[in-house]
Each structure stands twice: as structure tokens, then as C-alpha cells.
């Protein structure tokens, strides 16, 4: 049984940010996610941010091989993984080097001194061992431990050999950190036992290391100024929660959409960071009738999805920016065919190959405009990992109701970041069953439109009597046959545009996320900046500023009432992780002098950065 200092001996904290950093091989992602799971079970609100290198296994000890995992947990609701860590765990010199700059002043530094050997110091670019530099150390509260040695000691009895034994050092570290924050080891023990069910020795060694780290906290005398902490439970809405990453939420949302619509889900995809794990997640859901097709490239992937849609499936393709750049022609075809299709773009740092493992929001204009001809399509964006679930369903609903491809934007930060998510019940989600015409209606042709939605009928191959031909050439409005008639082309172009514009009637009106409908400053965001903006706006309002936030989940068409809302503010700022894209659209649409707050570093906004922008723009 775990033993803890009694609650009153622990210092209570409102919120803590911990960053685990080590070599790619050090298991930091595991450590972080185990800490996350336990923290969630303890009833804290939390947000996480994994940040790993582009290399699969970068050579040990290098700075570019450092893998990090940050968790922010609190006794109140929080929305971001935190700006600066309160606690940094550095497993080697490279991890220290690349992360120490972010640690708060007087922050807690837990460092594995055993890794501070010559070779590692050199690889990290340290001429001298920083752990011997008192001036350096004095800036922080430091727990300097030879974690490697302690781990070896803890697992000695299992005779795994040094290399294998050392693999448990992340568990030792986790044990210590769990203790520091008053968390139990039992959830991780259970997880280890399950994970290594077939290798009981490894399981035992890891458990031993974990417990040893925990016990160390309990028994060892920590340096002065370092105590045991606790972060009381947050008051969260009642319900059953889980952690969920954006990509899992997306995959599950798409699957839920398939159930809600009664359509078979067919995914055509080609692996690409950071979208691949959506393919992986869906490939595991065959028992939901999900069919996944790893195509030969992105073009084949989207084409297969369109072929599937024509056949009556929920056709989906998942990718990232470079993949969308390849899919433009085929998406244009889907627009011309007026078939459903969901294109999920998990954005990453660009242009070109760019920074594949980093996050960015720089595909927005490509999503809205990146096709030949006048080729409008709805563009939606999820704003939190859990929101990926709901927006996937929304994308599907719009796609099948309006017979149009839909682009759904998320990003690397949402994809890999996890948040506690209140699990919805299927029974609470609105079904949108699709029925395919089976009888040949009077005057049937494939471009006969529903007068309200302007959608054409989804007549699927295999249906007797509805044989028809479709294709990428312009269609006659009245017969669906090929037409080069000038007026018809004008009319069809306008009709396609009107169909997409008309979706505005079918989405929620613009409303402030935080704040009033008028004031001094309106902050308009979209996508994964949600948490940081909300937090910053709340803080500004707490300081008495007349600031409101609008967060867009629909970018094309924009939600109704947005123009009026904007008109109620003296100034508008638009924070984006790109060089100014939504701001371009808003300026053009509403002739408002929207000011871009742009961060193009592959890193999410810090709350403080947006706070600063708010202050500057109020001044």
C-alpha cells in the first residue's frame, strides 16, 4: 500500500505544470501518459502536450532526440497544458539543455545526474557539467539524483542485465513524481501488469522501480524548500470521463457518424504525420463495419473515398497539409459531382515538408481556396481534442445532407494532445439517417435538386432504374447531362456557391464564448487555440477589461450573425498559429480591420502571449 504524508502535511497547490523530458528512448511519453491517467482519476482537470522529435529513434543523447510530455493539472478547470512548467524532469543533459529555458523561476528541477557523463554532455553541447555549476543550479529548486543507479538497485533482483534494467528508470521517476503530488502507484501497477502480462519479469521490474521511486520520496530527505504537494480535486461537471486525444476522438466521431447516419464508413488514407493515427484507430474498428484502405498515395486515397461515397458509403480521407495539396484536383471533382466526402486535415508546420511533428494552423486558406475553378466547400474546425468527436459528426451531417465534400481541420496539437473528456452517450446524439432513392422519381436526373438544401439525390449504383452518368465536366442544370452552355455554367457555379452558403442557416449563430456581445475588444479564434484564448480572455475580464471571445468552428460558411457581433466591438484581434489567414477572411468578409496575432513556431500559444496581445490592443 502506498503511504502518504497526511493531507495537512502537504502543501496545497491550485495548479501545477510538469514537463517530463528525456531521450526518445527514455519512455517519456509513457511516463507522461501514466501520470496523466492517475491524475485524471484523482479528479483534477488537466491538459497535456506531448512534443516528440521528427526522428524515429534519434541517436541517444542528442538534443534533437529529446522527447517531452507536459501536463497541466489543477483544482479548477483549465484549458491548456500550461505556459511554463513548474516542474521539469530532465533525464539527460540534452533534455536539460533544450527545456531548462522554459522552467519557471524557482521551479522544481528533477534531474537524473547519472546521465551527466562526458559523452552525453558533449552531445548536448555542454562544455562543463551544469550540475556542478552552482550559479546555474541556484536559480531553481533542484532534486539531483542518480536515477539510473537507484533504478538498477531497485530491479537488481530480476537480473535483467543493465540495458534492460535501465529501461525501468522512467518508472522510478514516475514513482517519485507521483509521490510528490500525492498520487498512488496502483493504477500504473495495474497497467504495467496488464501490458507486460506475457513478460512477468519485465512487469515486476517496472513495478519495483515505480515503487522504489515512490518510496524514495516517502523516505528520503528532500532538499529544503521541496516538499510534498497536493492539488485538490477540481469541480467538474458530473459524468464519466476519459482522456482522449484529438485523433482518437476524430476516429471515434467518424465511426459514431457512420452509426448515426446508417452509412458504412470507408476510409481511404495514406500515412502522414500527424494524421496516421486516425487511420490506425479506424483500422482497429472493423467490428463497426469500418473499412480502411491504405492507398498508394494521397490522391488514390481521396479518390477511393469518393468512389465509396458514390457507392453509398460515408467516404472519408484523412491527411495533413502536403496531402491536401495533392488532393485538390480530386476534391474539386467531388465538388462537381456533388457527392459527400469528408477530408480531415490534421495540420502540421509548413510550407512543404516543413516541421512534420510540430503543430500549425497554416492550411486554412488552402482548405478554403486551394482548388482550381470556383470550388466552394464547407470548412469546419475542431477546437479541442474532444471536440474532434463532435465536429466529425457535424462534418458528416453537413456532407450527406448537402451532398458536398467537407473539410475538417484539426492540427498536431489537438491530434496528440489529450484532455479529460466527458463521455457523451450515443442516445444523446441526433441521428441523421440517410435514405437512398430506390424508385425512379418523375423526371429523375442526377442533378435534380432539393429546393431547400439544393442537394442532389444520392442515387447509388446497384439501384435498378436509376442508372446515370456523372463526371467532372459541367452539368446541365435541367438534365444533368454534359453542358458547355455559357448561361448554364454561370447558373451552376452560382448554385454550387449558394448551396454551400446556405449551410449557414443550419449551423449555430455566432455567439461569444466568453464575455458580452459588445465591448472594447473581440478576440476571434478558431481551432486548437481555443484553450489559450479562453484562458487569456477570462484573465483579462477578471482584470476588468471589456474583452470577449468568439471561437469559430465553422469557417465556410461563417456562422450567421458574426458580422453584427463584430460590429459591437471597437477592435478585433485574431490569434492564429499561421501568418494571418482567418484574419484575411474576416477582413474581406466584414471589412473589419482585424489584427492578426501570429505565432508560427510550431508551438501552441501560451496564455500569456495572448494576454499580452489583448493588453497591447486595448492600450
Amino acid at each position, binding site marked *: 500500500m502506498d503511504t502518504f504524508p497526511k493531507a495537512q502535511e502537504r502543501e496545497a497547490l491550485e495548479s501545477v505544470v510538469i514537463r517530463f523530458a528525456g531521450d526518445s528512448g527514455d519512455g517519456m511519453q509513457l511516463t507522461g501518459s501514466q501520470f496523466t491517467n492517475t491524475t485524471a482519476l484523482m479528479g483534477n482537470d488537466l491538459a497535456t502536450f506531448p512534443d516528440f522529435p521528427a526522428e524515429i529513434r534519434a541517436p541517444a543523447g542528442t538534443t534533437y532526440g529529446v522527447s517531452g510530455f507536459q501536463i497541466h493539472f489543477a483544482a479548477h478547470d483549465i484549458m491548456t497544458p500550461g505556459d511554463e512548467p513548474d516542474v521539469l524532469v530532465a533525464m539527460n543533459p540534452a533534455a536539460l539543455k533544450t527545456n531548462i529555458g522554459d522552467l519557471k523561476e524557482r521551479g522544481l528541477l528533477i534531474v537524473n545526474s547519472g546521465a551527466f557523463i562526458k559523452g552525453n554532455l558533449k552531445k548536448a553541447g555542454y562544455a562543463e557539467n551544469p550540475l556542478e555549476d552552482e550559479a546555474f543550479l541556484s536559480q531553481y529548486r533542484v532534486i539531483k539524483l542518480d536515477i539510473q543507479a537507484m533504478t538498477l538497485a531497485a530491479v537488481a533482483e530480476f537480473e535483467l542485465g543493465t540495458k534492460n534494467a535501465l529501461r525501468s528508470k522512467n518508472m522510478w521517476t514516475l514513482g517519485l513524481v507521483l509521490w510528490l503530488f500525492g498520487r498512488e502507484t496502483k493504477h500504473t501497477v495495474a497497467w504495467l501488469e496488464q501490458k507486460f502480462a506475457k513478460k512477468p519479469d519485465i512487469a515486476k521490474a517496472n513495478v519495483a522501480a515505480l515503487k522504489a521511486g515512490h518510496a524514495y520520496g516517502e523516505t528520503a530527505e528532500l532538499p529544503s524548500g521541496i516538499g510534498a504537494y497536493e492539488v485538490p480535486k477540481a469541480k467538474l461537471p458530473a459524468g464519466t470521463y*476519459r*482522456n482522449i486525444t484529438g485523433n482518437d476522438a476524430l476516429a471515434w466521431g467518424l465511426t459514431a457518424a457512420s452509426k448515426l447516419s446508417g452509412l458504412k464508413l470507408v476510409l481511404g488514407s495514406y500515412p502522414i504525420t500527424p494524421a496516421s493515427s486516425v487511420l490506425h484507430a479506424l483500422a482497429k*474498428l472493423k467490428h463497426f463495419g469500418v473499412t480502411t484502405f491504405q492507398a498508394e498515395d494521397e490522391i488514390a486515397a481521396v*479518390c477511393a473515398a469518393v468512389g465509396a461515397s458514390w457507392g453509398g458509403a460515408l467516404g472519408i480521407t484523412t491527411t495533413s497539409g502536403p496531402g491536401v495539396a495533392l488532393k485538390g484536383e480530386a476534391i474539386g471533382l467531388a465538388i462537381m459531382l456533388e457527392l459527400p466526402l469528408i477530408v480531415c486535415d490534421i495540420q502540421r508546420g509548413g510550407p512543404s515538408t516543413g516541421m512534420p511533428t510540430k503543430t500549425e494552423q497554416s492550411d486554412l486558406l488552402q482548405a478554403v481556396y486551394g482548388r482550381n475553378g470556383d470550388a466552394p466547400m464547407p470548412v469546419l474546425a475542431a477546437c479541442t481534442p474532444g471536440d474532434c468527436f463532435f465536429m466529425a459528426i457535424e462534418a458528416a451531417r453537413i456532407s450527406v445532407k448537402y451532398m458536398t465534400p467537407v473539410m475538417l481541420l484539426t492540427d498536431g496539437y489537438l491530434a496528440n494532445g489529450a484532455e479529460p473528456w466527458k463521455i457523451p452517450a450515443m442516445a444523446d446524439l441526433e441521428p441523421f439517417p440517410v435514405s437512398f432513392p430506390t424508385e425512379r422519381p418523375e423526371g429523375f436526373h442526377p442533378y435534380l435538386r432539393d429546393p431547400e438544401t439544393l442537394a442532389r439525390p444520392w442515387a447509388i*449504383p446497384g439501384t435498378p432504374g436509376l*442508372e446515370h452518368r456523372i*463526371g467532372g465536366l459541367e452539368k446541365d442544370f435541367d438534365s444533368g447531362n454534359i453542358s458547355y452552355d455559357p448561361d448554364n455554367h454561370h447558373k451552376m457555379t452560382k448554385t454550387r456557391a449558394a448551396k454551400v452558403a446556405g449551410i449557414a442557416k443550419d449551423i449555430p449563430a455566432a455567439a461569444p464564448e466568453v464575455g458580452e456581445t459588445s465591448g472594447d475588444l473581440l478576440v476571434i479564434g478558431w481551432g486548437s487555440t481555443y484553450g489559450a484564448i479562453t484562458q487569456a480572455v477570462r484573465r483579462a475580464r477578471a482584470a476588468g477589461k471589456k474583452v470577449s471571445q468568439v471561437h469559430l468552428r465553422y469557417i465556410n460558411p461563417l456562422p450567421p450573425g458574426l458580422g453584427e457581433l463584430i460590429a459591437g466591438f471597437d477592435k478585433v484581434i485574431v490569434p492564429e498559429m499561421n501568418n494571418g489567414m482567418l484574419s484575411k477572411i474576416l477582413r474581406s468578409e466584414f471589412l473589419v480591420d482585424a489584427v492578426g496575432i501570429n505565432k508560427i513556431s510550431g508551438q501552441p500559444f501560451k496564455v500569456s502571449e495572448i494576454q499580452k496581445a489583448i493588453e497591447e490592443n486595448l492600450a
Partner: protein
Amino acid sequence: MSPSDPPKKLTRKDFASDQDVRWCPGCGDYAILATIQRTLPTVNADPAKTVFLSGIGCSSRFPYYMNTYGFHSIHGRAPAFATGLKLTNPELDIWIITGDGDGLSIGGNHLMHVLRRNVDVQLMLFNNRIYGLTKGQYSPTSLVGLRSPSTPKGSIDMPVVPALIALGAGARFVARSVDTLAKHLGPTLVAAREHRGASFIEILQNCPVFNDDTWAHVKSKEAGADAVLLLEHGKPMIFGKEKSKGLRLKPNSLELEVVTIGEDGITEADILVHDETNRPMAFLLAGMEPPTFPMALGVLLRDPAPAYDAAVLAQVADAQAAGEGDIDQLLNSGHTWTIE
């Protein structure tokens, strides 16, 4: 039609759409269209379950003229659309229509992959050795030296042999026929349709406007007989006006040679027998070209294996048989916690 009515016997007309056919007068595509429209009723094809799916090119206009389901997609990508469609509804009988430009230039990779995956579709490649629709540029099958608007001094690229590409990719049904040889083309298409898995059929097609008579040496009555070998499984590979020529494997080598029965003591027994299931033989036959060799027409290879779509859907069905997925259960799987 009430359920008790006897199924109506369809005719060629039932497979013709109401659209005007818009190819140039004399285009070989007309003959192919006519053959398909005549052939489908003979195999009791159901227009509602039949799909023609094409890329872009003159040939790719084909779907508009069939009174079946039709999909005129984008340049080169028809195999990918077809794969998605087949995975969605495996009951459909899918015919991919492509050209030498559509299928071997921009679409070469999709063609290769649909064949190697062995998706159950028929892929008809209309090979006129030219880009028709864009007005006559040379294509990947154009002969070296062809003068075209983009190669005014004659083309330089080595042409590809479509059947070799297909075989190299691992295709399991490879055949070749000719636009105007209706009696040969019809049965070849029927064989392709019967084959489960991907079937590849190259059709030598004339483009009278931009590459007239590119196949004259194969098609003309006079030259034709000596320049064409009509393959029949299990039959010795004999050809020629007098049915006196044959193919033989050079002794202890890997090369074919043309011999004449009755000369040098050669008898019919010396002639190599066509074996549709022999892939190395298919490689040799595919590469044969006049004037040294006859052009092999018919089924070069027929070597069935389970189709991709069937296997994919079997995995799905297996998984479902072990228990249909439940979203609520999925969402609640793994670590959860409850806040009251």
C-alpha cells in the same frame, strides 16, 4: 415488372444511353463500344449492377454511352475510384476504361496498384499510342521517332509494353485484343469478366485523326495473319496465313523463336503449347512484337487468386461476427473515471 414476369432478355439497345456518341468518325472506340453493348446482354449483365468508370481522354468518354452506371472521373485515377466503390459494394461489376495516356502516363501507378492488389474489376486500356483528346501528343506507348506536336523531331522515350507493365505489377489476368476484331474482343471481355480479381485487357485501337494505322500491321487482312498469334489455352501456338508458323523455345535457353512447320523437320509437336497459367510464358508472349514475332492476342495469363475486396470485407465480416461494435462501449473503454 412484377416479380412473376419472366426476366426480360436484354439487347444491345438496353445498354446504349440516350447520349450522342461524340468520337471522331472512324474512331476505333465506336467498334469497342458496339462490342461491349452486344456482349453484355449475352452474359446476362444487369445494367443496374454494371458500372463503367473512366479517367480522362477520348476513350474515357465511354461511360456516357452506356446505359449503366457511369463515372467519368479525373485523369489517371479511375482505378482508385473503382477500388473505393468495390470496397463499398462488392456486388457491382466494375469496368475501368482508360487510355494509354490516362492509364500508363499519369495513371501508371494506380493501374499498377489495382492490379497488384487484385481488386475484382476489369480494366480496359484503349491503346492508340497517342493522346487523342489533347490533340495528338505522343504517349508512353508511342514508337520511338514518332513526330507529334510535342516531339517535332521525333520521340525519344522507349515505349512501354502495357502487358509487361501489368505482368511486372503482378497482374493475374492479362489479355490483349483489337478494337475491330469483335469476334475476338467479345469473348476476351467475357473471360475477363468471369475472372475473379483484377483483369487487364489491352485493346489495340485506331485513332484515325492523330495516329492513323498505328496497328495496321496487325489489323490488315494481308499482314495480319502473319503478324498475329491468336492464343488458345492448351493449344500449340501456331499462326500465319497457312497456319504453318509456330513458336518454339530455343533449346535450353529462355528465348522464343518462330519456326515453320514442315521445314527443318519441325512438326506440330515441336510447337510450344500455350499455358495461360504460366507467368514466365506470359512475359515472353507479352514482349513479342512484329516483325520478328507475331503479336500475341488473347489471354496471355489467367492465374486466379483471392480478390482484394473479398479479403478486406472478410476481415470486416470476421470482426463483426465476433461481436458488432458498440460506440458507447468504445467510448467507455480503457481508463475512465466518474465525477459525481
